[in-house]
Each structure stands twice: as structure tokens, then as C-alpha cells.
């Protein structure tokens, strides 16, 4: 019951937070645009396109998703190796 309430609470907080963020009229630009590029353009050195320009349409979204999957898979694999699941039997044993 406690876990269910926690999960529902987390989902509600996530949805409400997302709604508030989306309602905000801000552009949500990164500091690269608001700071780095601003000063670079004033100094006459605007950024150039990357040599492998994945920032086109949904292509960047695709690559970010792949990066997230790859990072998550690698992290999850090694997490399991370093922090194996605790069995109930080992939890009952005295600490060494």
C-alpha cells in the first residue's frame, strides 16, 4: 500500500511539474545560446555547424535516445555487477 501511494505520488508530481514547466513562457534555451553563443557572436566568432551534424529534424532526438539507451545499458550492466541483488538469506546473516 505504501509503495503504491509512493508511486502514485511520484507520477502526480512528475505530471504536475511537467505541466508547470510547459506553461512557462520561457524558451528553455541552454546556456550555450544564452551565454556562450551570445558572447561569441558579439566577438565575431559565431558557432559553426558540427562536422557530423546530427542536429536536423528528429535525427538529434534519435541520437540522444540511442545515447540514453547505451548509457543506461552500460550503467545498468555494471551496476548489477557492483551491487548484486541482496537475497533475503544474506540479509539475515550477521555483518562481517
Amino acid at each position, binding site marked *: 500500500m505504501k509503495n503504491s501511494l509512493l508511486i502514485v505520488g511520484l507520477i502526480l508530481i512528475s505530471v504536475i511539474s511537467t505541466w508547470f514547466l510547459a506553461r512557462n513562457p520561457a524558451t528553455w534555451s541552454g546556456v*550555450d545560446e544564452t551565454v*556562450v553563443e551570445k558572447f561569441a557572436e558579439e*566577438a565575431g566568432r559565431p558557432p559553426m555547424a558540427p562536422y557530423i551534424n*546530427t542536429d536536423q529534424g528528429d535525427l538529434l532526438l534519435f541520437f540522444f535516445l540511442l545515447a540514453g539507451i547505451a548509457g543506461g545499458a552500460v550503467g545498468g550492466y555494471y551496476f548489477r555487477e557492483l551491487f548484486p541483488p541482496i537475497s533475503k538469506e544474506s540479509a*539475515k546473516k550477521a555483518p562481517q
Partner: protein
Amino acid sequence: MMMVHVFSFTGKGLPLLAMHISEGILPPGWAGFWFLLALPFVAWGLRDLKVLSAREPFYKPMVGLIGAAVFVISCMPIPVPSVGTCSHPCGTGLAAILLGAPITVVITSVALTLQALFLSHGGLTTLGADIFSMGIVGGFTGWGVFRLSRRVGIPALTAAFLAGMLSDWATYSTTSLELASALHGTGSFPQMFTAIFISFIPTQLPLGIFEGFLTAGVYRFIAVRRPSLLTCLGVEVQAYRSAKTVNSDKGEVAI
């Protein structure tokens, strides 16, 4: 430095969603300078990685886990509602606490290279500068703050929080220095540095605090879940005893 257009659909500058210094912003001389400054640290980190991996069998999985974490964390834009902008934490403070600063530089170099190649995040010409700010300054600051804090008796979680927060702030301070150095032209360097530094504050001040909490949270997880890792990594001498104390108070069994 030879510029090779491997795969570029347009030739003009684009509003990129990167958080590091974007491609082409640094003049070639400065780009090369930061590369030269970063290379010895990368070599140092590779040497440490080889030595420590041979000595401790769990080092490679730990580097794999932390490396994946730094990669994901450093390309994760977090909205800062107070200013309506986004930025990313670095994760290098956490990495430096657990793995040491030199190996953090290697991890950061790999993460930044992958981001520059596939995510239009940062740039290949600005890689040296980004490695210097995030990997070297961020890593060594995090490591130094943690060690010094523990030496003067500050509790581990507070030390981890300070390390995470200050490594983040140090990274962006260095980015301000790198940009001001390269872009001030005939203008005043201190003035430009101050202007860029102040521009970062509204976003990076809260984000640095967030990174502090993130670092402390991960540290606590390891200290409670598998404290022997901290002692084996040389992070703490008494981590296992501390974890036993925490768990004993709750009536749980230490792992």
C-alpha cells in the same frame, strides 16, 4: 589544425542544443593551446587506469559505471525554472571522489568526444577546452574539496555535497576564463570574464547545488549499500564502520 568536413549538410552556424563550447567558437590557436594543456592529464589518467585495473578487479566495472553516468549526466539538460533556461550537471566531482581525478579526465574525454561526434554537443575543435574545464578543473576541484573536507573533519556526505557543487561551479568558471581569453580581443579581459561569469550564475548557481545533492546522494547509496567499495577505492578508511553504525541504528544488517 586540419578541419575535415566528414558529414555536414549545411555550412552555416546553427542554433545548437549544446551545453559545452560549440564548434568553431575558439580561434585555432586557443583551441590548440587547450588541447596541449589537456593531453598530459589524459595520458596520466590512462596510465592510472592501466595500473589500478591490474591491481583491483572491480576497477573496470566501476569505471564503466561511472563513465556511463558522467556521459548521461553531462548531456542531460535540466530546466532551471527560476530563469527559464537549461543546463547540465557535470558528474565529474562524483567521478573524482570515487576514481580519482586523473581517471576522471579520461572518462570525461571519452564522454565529450562521443557527444561531439554524435550529439552535436560541444565540438571537436573545442574538445581540449571542454576536457580542461570539465574533466581537469572539475575533476581535480571535486577530488581536492572532498579530500580536504574529510581531512578537517567534515562529515562524508557534506564533503561529497561540497565536492559536487564546487566542481560544477569551477567547471563553468573555467569555461568563462576560456571564452574570455579567446574572445576579448582588444577589449578588457577581466571585464569580459566578469560579464560571462555573471551570465552563467542564474543557471549554474542552482544547478551546482543540485549537483551537490546528486553527488551526496550517490555517495550515501554506495556507503550504505556496499561500503567496502569505498574502502577498496581508497575513498574512506572507516566507511564500513560508518555504514555499520547507520544500519545498526535502524536494526538492519550491513552489507
